[in-house]
């Protein structure tokens, strides 16, 4: 295999595109040698991240775009998500206190926790008015 293979998908910021994102991940991660379990994990992590961008960075504004870039190397897959929406914080990722949330009828906070649980490295940067999120999965994880 080549040292570095990339694939790109740009979607409008609508949750109706989440299934396309999952299919895109599944297709390329499968072709590039990831196991079914790893693919399931990557797919869920990216779904959660894209959902957060749609809801929190873009507030469901479907005219906005999310760029998704997959970078496969011999050791890992890195997924880079770029949006030019509002800066939003995703730096807390403790396991949600389910019992408390149920009592208060609160949802949320679960996506971020899942992303950090399912991927090996997750980072966020804010650059030139854009949110850039990168999350990587090692082939041997």
């Amino acid at each position, binding site marked *: 295999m080549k040292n570095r293979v990339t694939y790109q998908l740009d979607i409008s910021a*609508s*949750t*109706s595109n*989440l*299934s396309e994102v*999952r299919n895109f991940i599944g297709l390329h991660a499968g072709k590039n040698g990831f196991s079914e379990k790893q693919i*399931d994990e990557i797919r*869920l992590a990216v*779904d*959660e991240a894209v*959902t957060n961008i*749609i*809801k929190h960075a873009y507030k469901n504004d479907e005219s906005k775009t999310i760029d998704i870039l997959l970078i496969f190397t011999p050791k890992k897959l890195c997924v880079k998500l770029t949006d030019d929406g509002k800066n939003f914080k995703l730096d807390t990722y403790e*396991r*949600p206190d*389910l*019992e408390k*949330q*149920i*009592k208060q*009828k*609160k*949802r*949320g906070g*679960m*996506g971020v*926790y*899942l992303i950090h*649980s399912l991927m090996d490295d997750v980072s966020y940067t804010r650059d030139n008015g854009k949110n850039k999120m990168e999350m990587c999965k090692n082939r041997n994880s």
Partner: protein
Amino acid sequence: MKNFSVKHRTQSGFSILDLHGELDAHTASQLEDALKDLINQNRSEIIVNCSNLEYIASAGLGVFMAYIEDVRSDGGDIKLTNMNDKVYNVFDLLGFPTLYDILDDESDAINNFSNR
């Protein structure tokens, strides 16, 4: 979207929701509407059969979190059954099995409700 559907049926007097397909931030509202309908009809003993549920994201889990307290305060419960391993793993990662009845088969849920 055709990648998710929820159907309601009644079995031994209990309300059963059959989930098909992929439950994500786009399709979660369909489940939410179905649960709200049941609760509005004062149906509080609810079984959610997940045998044809192929995928779940946290937005789907959020729906179960939002309504469990309502049905339990009415003396009922939402019991989840027939999950495949992949879907169960997501519930498990977030600690759902200690707070929700997740059962192998729909008949187990019916027995649990009947034998109370």
